[in-house]
């Protein structure tokens, strides 16, 4: 089947009203349902709340009373300022943005290109191309890492302005490139499923008017793809932000330019010497993706199901 349309995504977030309840709904199952749902919600939130709580407690307080205690002497944001300053977290957040924003932009653009070409035009290799991308997206990163690491450190040359070693290895450029290549699989899959649902008459009319392929793409197709593009932008921001593995291996010799998710690993233990600081660092790192999720929840959930509903 095709990808979910925006109305279906809507439904997912604002589900259809339940069918009229039978009179006198059996009460027991409903009570049990509430118990399970509330219990699950509490259980899922507990680790996050515990981290937040720990991060807000002064070290003197936890030293004296232990971590499992009520606050004596109030809560404080001191751990956040300490963590931020000691580990120079601002630097790593800038690194992250320098990597994530271009990667998301380019991956959406290139995926739209190829999705447009294979879904609106008929070539002999359409299916092969689509298969290649979809399968590529499903590979574990570790399958490609050994040769990729060698290519990055010995083969792929990069101007010294962009890299310390003159190669893609240890450079943010190299990291952006692998994100683009790797994430393209998923985005192409989603975009092509969506573009197939746009009626052919729309572009045919443009073609009759003499619009070039390029114009058709930018002024007819892309504006119609706002919904999946928004969903994918949200998802890709989160996924690339959350990447740990690529940056760990491909930026191994350049910790100063690592993104926050990877940097946090080496900062912990070096600068974050107690649980309070680890918690503060973790909460700070989690904040951007949680904020994006809260603000763009609909896009996020819609995107995940867009990608998964083919089949």
């Amino acid at each position: 089947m095709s990808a979910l349309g925006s109305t279906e995504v809507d439904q997912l977030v604002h589900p259809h009203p339940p069918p009229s309840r039978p009179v006198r709904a059996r009460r027991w199952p409903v009570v049990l349902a509430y118990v399970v749902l509330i219990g699950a919600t509490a259980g899922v939130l507990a680790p996050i709340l515990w981290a937040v709580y720990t991060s807000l407690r002064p070290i003197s307080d936890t030293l004296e009373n232990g971590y499992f205690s009520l606050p004596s002497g109030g809560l404080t944001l001191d751990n956040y300022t300490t963590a931020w300053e000691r580990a120079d977290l601002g630097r790593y957040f800038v690194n992250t943005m320098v990597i994530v924003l271009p990667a998301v932009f380019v991956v959406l653009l290139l995926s739209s290109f190829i999705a447009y070409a294979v879904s609106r035009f008929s070539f002999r290799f359409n299916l092969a191309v689509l298969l290649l991308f979809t399968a590529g997206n499903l590979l574990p990163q570790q399958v490609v890492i050994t040769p990729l690491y060698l290519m990055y450190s010995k083969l792929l040359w990069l101007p010294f302005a962009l890299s310390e070693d003159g190669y893609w290895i240890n450079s943010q450029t190299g990291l952006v490139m692998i994100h683009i290549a790797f994430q393209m699989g998923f985005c192409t899959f989603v975009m092509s499923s969506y573009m197939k649902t746009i009626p052919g008459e729309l572009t045919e009319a443009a073609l009759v008017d003499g619009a070039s392929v390029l114009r058709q793409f930018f002024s007819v197709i892309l504006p119609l793809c706002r919904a999946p593009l928004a969903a994918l932008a949200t998802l890709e921001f989160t996924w690339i932000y959350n990447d740990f593995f690529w940056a760990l291996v491909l930026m191994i010799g350049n910790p100063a330019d690592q993104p926050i998710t990877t940097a946090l690993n080496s900062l912990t233990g070096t600068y974050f010497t107690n649980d309070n600081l680890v918690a503060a660092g973790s909460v700070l790192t989690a904040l951007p993706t949680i904020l994006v999720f809260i603000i763009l929840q609909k896009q996020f959930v819609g995107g995940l199901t867009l990608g998964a509903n083919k089949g």
Partner: protein
Amino acid sequence: MATTTSAPARPERRRRLRRLTRADKIVLAVFIGVPTFLHVFLIWVPTVGSVVLSFSSWDGISPLDQLEWVASQNYEQIFTIYPDFWPAVRNNVIWLVFFLIVPTTIALLLAYLLDKNLTGTRFYQSAIFVPVVLSAALVGFIWELIYKDETGLLNNVIRSTVNSDFHRQWLAESGNLYAVLIAASWRHIGYVMILFLAGLKSVDPAQREAAALDGANEWQIFRHVIFPALAPVNVVVLVVTVIESLRAFDIVFVINKGRNGLELVSVLIYDNVVGEASRIGYGSALAVILLIITMIAVLPYLYRTFREELPQ
């Protein structure tokens, strides 16, 4: 799932290409060529590279002419004398089985309950989904705050309720894999739950009501009406779960670099690429083993997904 046919039949497709101008064709060639080149060059070339290098012995540092071809020696050594290999495979299998059973069942139950639209459903759904937006590495950090012996939440709760002398290093003692699996499931449940929920939304309410009128109880309706309708989602969940289990790396790496009971094949590959002793042949052979296992799961899915588009 809802079965909207994706597009009207387009008999003129073949002819349309001929109406394209030269410039159009160049644009299309770039649209296909650039992304395909990038993807093939950085994903598929290294994949094939792993296969080729798996038959070699090389430290990755000395000049390329020191690379030796050793036929299947890497594989033989991995299967026979590499001490971490079988524990890693065992852990990956445990990871997979655990993931297929525990978070998946919980996610299905939660999705089923959320689908009832009780008061507060949107809040429960959002809250349970939050861990999905956190990186697996961060999940490791957050759960360390729970599992630590002296300062961790879990032992403190146990000490203050059940046994005041309780001590356990959840992440260092045997059984630590299951402690990690609970943390990993914490994140996986929300993801799978959303997939199931999307599937449940597409179950025809009329069918349920019909079954209810026929006197079927809730379990019977679930078993005979809802679950069969979830078949397409189940396939997606299966693939997602298998892939996530094989890819698992970040969380164990953050906790103890994947040692002492937390070995995984993915970690061994990492160790052989950039670890103390870089053994390119070993790392590649391990990657090929991972690739083969992945393909066993992925190929049937791809076939299923693209079946209808295959030329007859």
